[in-house]
């Protein structure tokens, strides 16, 4: 459905996007992750046909955005960064304008408008000028505009930015509901969002793709994947820590203070499973360990490790203050 081929964008000496290639089939929600200035938005702008790439191209449903831009744009629903909309227009006039440009007329226009208004719950603000709407409503009008013609490919640059937690939850449900029939790309800096809606995540930094996989797969690359987290009695903490380190499966033990509890994190060699070993250990300790579980690893650890490699390697074995 969407094929990005070796996209490159240079702004003078600055290489904003440096050879990004990827394919998004129908049924996939791809999360585009990266620090600010990583090249996420620039990539999306090129795919949507706003910026001309320095090299490479994008093909949307078989139509090349460079050689057949009008056809390619018809297959695409695009929410630009910041959800821009004409501030003087009312929401309904704005959607009507987009519908007209999209070639929707008559009954089709009516039903498409009704569908997105219902989906985005913007019925109550239709006759207000967009500049008077709250950030959340502005964002929803922007997404409504992108969904209006029910496109097979959707590119949403930060679709939940400015939404409150309930609205975020709703927006994610809507994206998940559309997943089976569409190829969807969203960019976000909220890692929890990737875990909540994306079937695949790509981490991009300095214009290059640094990681590509299912969110759970990426999380498994966390140094804490398969680590055991033990809540222990404060008095026994030092002794337990020393004993844990001596277990053959364990590489190191970190101490974390959380809510005045002593927490030990036992990190295995090469993220190997250590559940059995820890279970035996905990049984032997009796009441000194009040609670324990195996961690899956966290996407933000992976994100930090991948996008800031220089800072990570110079850091000594961390004893984190808070998890």
């Amino acid at each position, binding site marked *: 459905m969407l094929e990005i081929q070796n996209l490159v964008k240079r702004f003078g000496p600055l290489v904003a996007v440096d050879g990004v290639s990827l394919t998004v089939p129908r049924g996939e929600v791809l999360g585009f992750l990266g620090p600010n200035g990583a090249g996420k938005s620039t990539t999306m702008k090129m795919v949507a046909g706003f910026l001309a790439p320095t090299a490479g191209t994008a093909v949307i449903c078989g139509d090349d955005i460079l050689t057949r831009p009008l056809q390619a744009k018809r297959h695409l629903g695009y929410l*630009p960064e910041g959800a*821009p909309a*004409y*501030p003087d227009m009312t929401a309904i006039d704005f959607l009507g304008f987009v519908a*007209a*440009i*999209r070639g929707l007329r008559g009954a089709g226009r009516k039903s498409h408008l009704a569908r997105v208004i219902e989906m985005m719950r913007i019925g109550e603000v239709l006759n207000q000028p967009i500049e008077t709407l709250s950030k959340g409503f502005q964002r929803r009008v922007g997404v409504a505009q992108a969904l209006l013609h029910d496109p097979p490919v959707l590119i949403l640059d930060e679709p939940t930015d400015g939404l409150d937690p309930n609205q975020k939850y709703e927006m994610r449900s809507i994206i998940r509901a559309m997943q089976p029939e569409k190829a969807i790309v969203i960019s976000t800096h909220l890692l929890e969002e990737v875990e909540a809606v994306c079937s695949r995540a790509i981490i991009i930094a300095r214009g290059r793709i640094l990681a590509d996989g299912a969110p759970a797969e990426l999380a498994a690359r966390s140094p804490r994947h398969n680590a055991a987290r033990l809540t222990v009695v404060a008095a026994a903490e030092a002794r337990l820590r020393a004993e844990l380190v001596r277990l053959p499966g364990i590489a190191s033990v970190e101490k974390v203070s959380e809510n005045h509890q002593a927490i030990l994190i036992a990190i295995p060699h090469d993220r190997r499973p250590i559940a059995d070993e820890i279970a035996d250990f905990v049984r032997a300790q009796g009441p000194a360990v009040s609670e324990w579980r195996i961690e899956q690893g966290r996407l933000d650890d992976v994100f930090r490790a991948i996008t800031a490699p220089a800072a990570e390697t110079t850091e000594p074995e961390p004893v984190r203050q808070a998890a």
Partner: protein
Amino acid sequence: MRNTAIIFRRELAGYFATTLAYVFIVIFLALAGALTFFVGNFFERGQADLQSFFSFHPWLYLVLIPALSMRLWAEERRSGTIELFLTLPVRLSEAVLGKFLAAWCFAGIALALTFPFWITVNLLGNPDNGVILASYLGSWLMAGAILAVGAAVSAITKSQVIAFVVSTAVVFVLTAAGTSIVLDLVRGWAPAGVIRAVAGASLFGHFSTITRGVLDLRDLVYFVSIIAGFLGANALLIELKKAD
């Protein structure tokens, strides 16, 4: 073509959605009246024509038309809607043309609202209505040429103020090119061909030919080429500069 019409309608409605349209029309009519009656000595001349009305149009437009054109693209760039607009399935030419035609149509509405001048002069005497009609047409063409310049300038900046100031400067040069101040500057050293070219590039020169009642094909070609040339530049500048 269909898209041009849709964009045209949205843009034209945009003028009337804010107070801009009304403020512009009121100021335009007030200034036109003041210049005609007080500076142009409409009554004292004792002639049943609209010369004193039309002769100030180049200077009126110099200030007012850039105020109309400054928002065309600068506002889209500032608010980021240009990214939304140009990722819809429209050709850049349709976008440029739709915006320009809406602004030109609006200028036409403002100009048409000066009809009381025409009624007045017809009540007072027997003017040559053919000349007046030609003058209106010439004035509207000149407004279009200035709008096209302003639209192209508006394409290169996010700031409406910069768009206004630069457009006014460019239009001033274009208008003043035919006046003796500029021609005297050139006359001392330039060959005759250059002097003719400078004089020929003047909005003022072509407009005043028309207001004298001479509707020459060359003047029409001049205005149409200015409009076409600057709209082409507009499209090119958007293509080159839309990213920053």
